[in-house]
Structure formats: structure tokens, C-alpha cells
């Protein structure tokens, strides 16, 4: 959808929805730029690691493959 068509719809949004949209857009821009929001810097390394069980399963698979073909 072209921006010119989108703007009239955006104007109809409520105040809180406009705020949420603003937050969404800034988060998208940070994500695309690979930047870390200031309020999460320093916390990124410890959050989400305690329950990364799928990641642990992938590492177990990598270890098993390593035993078959070392440092492949």
C-alpha cells in the first residue's frame, strides 16, 4: 500500500494506537539496523538464555555430528 493511501488511515488512529505505532516503527528500524535499544544494553546476554532449550538441542546435535566428522 502506498504511503499516500496509508496516511489518512493513520490519522484516524487513536492517540494510544499512534503511540504504539511509533514504538513499533522505532523497534523495526532498530532491528533492521542491528542496533540494541539503550534500555536493554547490558541485559541482552543474560536474558533468554535460561530457557533456550531448543538452542541446547541444536548444540547437542552439533556435538554428535562433530564426533562423526571433527571440525567440519
Amino acid at each position, binding site marked *: 500500500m502506498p504511503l499516500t493511501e496509508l496516511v489518512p488511515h493513520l490519522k484516524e488512529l487513536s492517540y494510544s494506537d499512534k503511540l504504539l505505532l511509533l514504538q513499533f516503527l522505532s523497534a523495526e528500524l532498530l532491528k533492521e539496523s542491528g542496533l540494541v535499544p539503550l534500555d536493554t544494553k547490558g541485559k*541482552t546476554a543474560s536474558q533468554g*538464555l*535460561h530457557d*533456550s532449550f531448543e*538452542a*541446547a538441542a541444536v*548444540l547437542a546435535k*552439533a*556435538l554428535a555430528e*562433530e564426533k562423526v566428522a571433527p571440525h567440519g
Partner: protein
Amino acid sequence: MVDKVRFAFTEVDPDLGTLSTLPYLPLVLTYQNQFINVSGLLDTGSSVNVLPYEMGLRLGAVWDQRLSVPLGRNLARFEARALVLTANVERFSPVELAFAWTQDKNAPLILGQMNFFLAFDVCFYRAESAFEISLKLA
């Protein structure tokens, strides 16, 4: 054969003294013919080992050849790949450690449940700012 080795906690902030000490373990990581001397944070609350992006590059690992690793929450914004390295700790026999090699430039080197704590037993003596590790028997 080495039974167990005791290490002192590392003071992170001199102003805070023992309040800021953390269990960092010195080790040598090797990949193919490259090796680096590093310190990893022993983190029993982490499901996985985490390797900072720069360390993987210094070891000559190739990002595109690795399995993708789905890390949770805030770390999910950064892609991570599986990388198996040989780790030498003190005089223990070398062990294979699997890392989530992350593109998060702020990530420290973390030694977590998969698989550091499967390879080593660790006993923490927080009041003494020390920990002891021993290699698990296969």
C-alpha cells in the same frame, strides 16, 4: 590425572570490591589450528554456552557453514550458529564444547548447561569468592 582445581572469583568493579566478583574461568579455545586464551563466565542459569562473534572470527570459523541456533527472547534478535570448539582448562584433558556463536556484539563468553556443566562438575564457595571444578568421567 588432575582431580579438581580451585579458582578465585574475578573482581569486575574495583569500587564495589567483593560485591562485584564473578566466577570467570580461564581457558584456551581451539578450532582447527587456531587458539585463543579467554575467560568464560560460569552461568548455571544459562541453557547454552555462548561465544561472542569476534572470538569465532579470531578462531577462523566460517559463519555460513554452521547450524542455526534459536536463542530466546532478547538474544533472538541476533542470529546465532552452532560451533564446536576444543577447550583446555588447566591441566584437565581437552573437552569438546558446543557454543551458540552469536552476532550480539555485547555478549560475553558464557559457559552454560549445554554443555560446559555436562563436561565439568563445579562447586561454588561464594563466601570465599572461589570455585572448584573437576572433569566428569565419561
